[in-house]
């Protein structure tokens, strides 16, 4: 009985963790290419769920098509954010860039609240709701979707980075932007691409998780913060680390909520983050200074 409970918490942990991992991955892509932390990253996740809801219920499109259009729409939002807000202020300080993306996040949240209202919206599960029993615990079919989709896209992304010329160019920018520019890589295009990819990954996460958690205009802040926590624990420009950080955070949070206190669930994640920051403050400070 205890073991089945344990497994149940573990499953809900990796489910939530995979969304954190996708958000974290989005953070690392943009950060490694541009040195910017995009505070609107969590809002891309929210937009993914919202756009799908809109295409599905307002335009009555079939679910697969709604999902694809939603990812495309959020990607366009990412492109617009980079072109309209980030690109014109390339020389701005870190503080300024933080403020700009916070502004963007507020703006997106406001538009979403205006378009879709403040009530949490549901998406239908992709393949029914018959629970799958596993070792005395149960898995929702949607959980399988979340894990499968997350892993597939992470793998695809890894392949893109390691096996293609584009991936090489992105990695070059991550290593040294100026040098990448000198050898003829268009750094501005790479920056644009990094925002597009981060937006798309966020949207995908938002779409697969929405049937389990509902989607609402204001979920972005917490998701963004936790995604950042995951990314920071993994080292901010380390993709594999970010993904591992996401899963670790999801699992810690699930057990924290179960065994310590569910009211303080969000605080637990943040406290872990604090302890981590305090332990590593020195290294992190010098890493930022090099940027």
């Amino acid at each position: 009985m205890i073991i089945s409970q344990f497994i149940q918490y573990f499953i809900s942990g990796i489910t939530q963790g995979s969304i954190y991992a996708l958000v974290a991955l989005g953070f690392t892509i943009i950060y490694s290419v541009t040195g910017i932390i995009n505070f609107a990253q969590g809002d891309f996740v929210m937009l993914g769920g919202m756009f799908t809801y809109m295409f599905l219920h307002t335009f009555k499109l079939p679910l697969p098509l709604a999902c694809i259009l939603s990812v495309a729409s959020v990607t366009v939002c990412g492109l617009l954010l980079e072109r309209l807000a980030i690109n014109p202020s390339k020389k701005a300080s870190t503080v300024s860039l933080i403020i700009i993306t916070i502004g963007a996040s507020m703006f997106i949240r406001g538009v979403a609240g205006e378009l879709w209202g403040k009530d949490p919206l549901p998406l239908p599960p992709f393949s029914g709701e018959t629970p799958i029993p596993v070792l005395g615990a149960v898995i929702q079919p949607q959980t399988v979707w979340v894990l499968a989709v997350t892993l597939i896209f992470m793998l695809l992304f890894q392949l893109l980075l390691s096996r293609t010329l584009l991936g090489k160019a992105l990695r070059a920018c991550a290593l040294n932007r100026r040098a990448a520019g000198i050898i003829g890589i268009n750094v501005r295009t790479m920056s644009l691409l990094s925002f597009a990819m981060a937006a798309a990954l966020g949207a995908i996460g938002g779409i697969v998780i929405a049937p389990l958690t509902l989607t609402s205009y204001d979920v972005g802040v917490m998701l963004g913060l936790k995604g950042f926590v995951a990314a920071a624990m993994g080292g901010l420009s380390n993709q594999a680390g970010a993904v591992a950080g996401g899963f670790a955070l999801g699992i810690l949070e699930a057990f924290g909520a179960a065994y310590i206190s569910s009211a303080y669930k969000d605080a637990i994640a943040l406290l872990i983050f604090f302890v981590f920051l305090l332990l590593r403050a020195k290294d992190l400070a010098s890493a930022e200074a090099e940027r």
Partner: protein
Amino acid sequence: MKIGRLSLLKISAIAAGVTLLALIPWVFNPFYTTIAIIIGIHTIITVGLCLLMGYTGQVSLGQAAFYGIGAYISAILSLRAGLSPWLAMIIAAVTTGAFAYLIGRPILRLRGNYLAMATLGLGIITFIIFREADSFTGGLTGLSAVPYLSIAGFVFDTDRKYYYLVWVFTLLILIISQNIVNSRTGRALRAIRDSETAAESVGIDVPELKVRIFTLSAVYASIAGSLYVHYLTYVGPQPFDFLFSIRLLLMAVVGGLASIWGAIFGTAAISFLGDSLHGFGDLESIVFGFILMAIIIFMPQGLWVHFVAAYKERREKAGKMRQ
């Protein structure tokens, strides 16, 4: 400040400003007195944020936390322990300052993005504690019947009385802050903002000074929190959430991050804008988000500083033409 050095224009501007401030509760609709009280209280926090962000270059996205801690300590001590509200206010400021100093030491070793996220996290954690620690904070219901402030039997229980009290605090804090900025410490702060390495190399104790200014900004916020709670005589978690920290940031940005007196302008502008957008759903969030982006992109010194600079330029031009 030496009166002799101030130009006639400046003196008359200050006199006009003070007179206008003193007249507000008598000339305008009582509704504006209430708004002006809140503006005064929020200006105190905004100034602290300006010192920290604009002059020292350190980010804080969790300023609402200190505002809330000040408010709750003040409320709990005066309500439950029966302390005089003034004493409660002082203890709140000292405690909040000590807390900020202790937490600031490690946190301010972080820079840029990490510091932003750490302070954001701090704000969210304290908000969760305000909401969940029912036995201390009253949870979502909050604490009511917090006593008013009073001096020797004179109770600050009406908007008009409270208005003057708040603005005395606000102006004092603005003057103190302006003096800090103009002092040796102020120059050291700006040196840290421009380059920590350079500041360190000329003998500035960078970590200590950063923590001190962080502490000062927290004490300001705590005083504001106490003023707030003894005005409303009620405290609940809602005004201390993450969104309020961002709104404070917006106020500081609009007034100009590196402008002490701009803080009044920024706070007032955003308060009025917020009030007129109230009731239009999420329009507020859209407009505020847009303003935040637009100001940083197009006039990073802030709207107020931008206007003042434009005005000075025009006057100089006019002066040259007369010669």
